[in-house]
């Protein structure tokens, strides 16, 4: 275990990426993720890495595609409006089966929106990060330490399954400072025989491509990709439980919403209400099974989110609407207060007339 250092979330993420072996960063300035780019612009030249400020978000994600095609670890970061622009490239990454890391430090939307924290890109990240049938690995840190750990994890999973990964963060995670341990752990080596390294006139050309005009073949490629996704859903789900052993009410929240919820749970417990939390760490793959199992032993769920009811849909799907799911949400850059969550806990606790 290395010594802990005090770091800002965005900078900790950037340093973690470097420790994970990422030597290529492409980005475009946008609040509130600028620290990632600024950090990379300082560090990369000193370690023979590449920092390049692209002419657009679109160019940045396509530069990412270029490096990813050569089999090297590469990343970009942006915030919500910029991520919309990257969607084309994200779809191509998925269609070309290329690993890469995309960081979304979310802000309020839609449109230009605001610059304060938000989770309103949940649907975009988990459902529609571009055209076509595909998934991103979506990891949601709830501390600066997780900004580090999940960055290592994201690079690893992306290479393991040859698919793009996204860190879905927000302005609070990016800006806050906490002590962190920067220990990358072991970096796994995966097969890269597909990478464009030049044939050296010794092998057949490698082709990175997402075009396929034969419908039977394109269907086969999609089905194969989804077989791989099934393995990810089986093996890579990450979540954390908090006080769930005897809980009657289960909060589901990620990122900053989970931190607020934890405070509210402590207060509610002090008042004798049995409430706990399941915090998804992977938003895709979503922790469906634990939620379904939990639905048999709680009387209600609460979705605490910084969006107008997006996460709640996955909770309802996962639990097959077996129990009521209440929504506690603030948007536009607002964050639910502990009391907002506490009020919703009390409301949920009255359901079914228990206690």
């Amino acid at each position, binding site marked *: 275990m290395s010594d802990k250092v005090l770091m800002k979330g965005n900078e900790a993420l950037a340093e973690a990426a470097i420790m994970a072996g990422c030597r*290529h960063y492409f980005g475009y300035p946008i609040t509130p993720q600028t620290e990632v780019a600024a950090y990379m612009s300082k560090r990369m030249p000193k370690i023979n890495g590449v920092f390049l400020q692209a002419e657009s978000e679109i160019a940045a994600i*396509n530069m990412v595609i270029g490096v990813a095609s050569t089999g090297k670890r590469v990343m970009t970061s942006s915030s919500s409006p910029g991520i919309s622009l990257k969607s084309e*490239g994200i779809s191509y990454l998925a269609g070309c089966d290329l690993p890469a890391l995309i960081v979304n430090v979310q802000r309020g939307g839609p449109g230009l929106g605001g610059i304060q924290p938000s989770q309103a890109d949940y649907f975009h990240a988990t459902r529609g990060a571009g055209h076509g049938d595909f998934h991103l690995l979506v990891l949601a840190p709830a501390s600066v330490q997780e900004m580090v750990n999940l960055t290592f994890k994201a690079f690893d999973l992306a290479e393991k399954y040859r698919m793009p990964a996204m860190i879905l963060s927000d302005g609070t995670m990016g800006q806050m400072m906490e002590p962190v341990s920067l220990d990358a752990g072991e970096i796994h080596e995966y097969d890269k025989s597909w990478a464009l390294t*030049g044939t050296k006139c010794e092998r057949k050309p490698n082709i990175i491509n997402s075009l396929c005009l034969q419908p039977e073949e394109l269907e086969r490629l999609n089905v194969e990709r989804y077989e791989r996704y099934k393995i990810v859903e089986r093996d890579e789900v990450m979540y954390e439980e908090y006080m769930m052993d005897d809980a009657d009410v289960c909060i589901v929240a990620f990122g900053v919403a989970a931190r607020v919820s934890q405070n509210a749970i402590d207060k509610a417990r002090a008042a004798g209400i049995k409430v706990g939390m399941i915090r998804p760490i992977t938003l895709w793959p979503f922790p469906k099974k634990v939620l379904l199992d939990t639905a048999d032993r709680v009387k209600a769920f609460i979705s605490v989110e910084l969006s107008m009811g997006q996460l709640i849909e996955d909770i309802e799907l996962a639990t097959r609407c077996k129990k009521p799911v209440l929504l506690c949400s603030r948007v536009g850059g607002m964050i639910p207060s502990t009391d907002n969550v506490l009020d919703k806990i009390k409301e949920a606790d009255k359901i079914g007339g228990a206690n």
Partner: protein
Amino acid sequence: MATVFSKPEALTDAPLHYCPGCTHGIIHRLVAEAIDELGVRGRTIGVASVGCSVFTYNYFNCDMVQAAHGRAPAVATGVKRSDPNNIVFTYQGDGDLAAIGTAETVHSAARGENITVIFVNNAIYGMTGGQMAPTTLPGQVTQTSPYGRDVNTVGYPVKVCEMLSKVDGATYLERVAVNNVKNVRAAKAAIKKAFQNQIEGKGFSLIEVLSTCPTNWGMTPDKALGWLEENMIPYYPLGVYKDKYAESEVK
């Protein structure tokens, strides 16, 4: 028996899908010959674009990546920056390079990316069936300019070499044509120089190749070659628009 003419090694044996009389095939051959003659096939990585030339990844016998519409220079930037020893080229049409990918074109030139761009200008969108391109000539009839390109409503064609000649980062810009033997020979020399520049680390080279599209122009191949000579070359004059190193040698 002595072999006097053969297929370049940098081309695969895949049959080209291009329409009869289309000059893409000639340009493919010139690019492949340049790669062979410079001995760089084993470290060449090509970037295919969107349009008729999308399938170049099947034709060039080197590692290839297929980029989204207009994004080839950005993808090429990533490939080149990943390993500067790679020889990286893009092969793009006019819609790809001069419309949807204008920003990527201009900024890869501005950065002086050490890549080679082969820009095929046939004044029309071929793959989608003959729509007006950024390089469609004034008055030219296409599927989406059925009364002829009206510059008062849709504006003027983009002259890429002229535009990029004002970009400090660009190293070498030349416009060539492949409508007759003399021009094909000049095109070959220009393309080879564009690769040679990259090998020598000289920076961004773009060769604009005036090309025909008999199918969508609605002409026989022979007539199309004549139309290129009579209509395209006057609007898009051939020649070197920038040669940074020649300029410095003169000085």
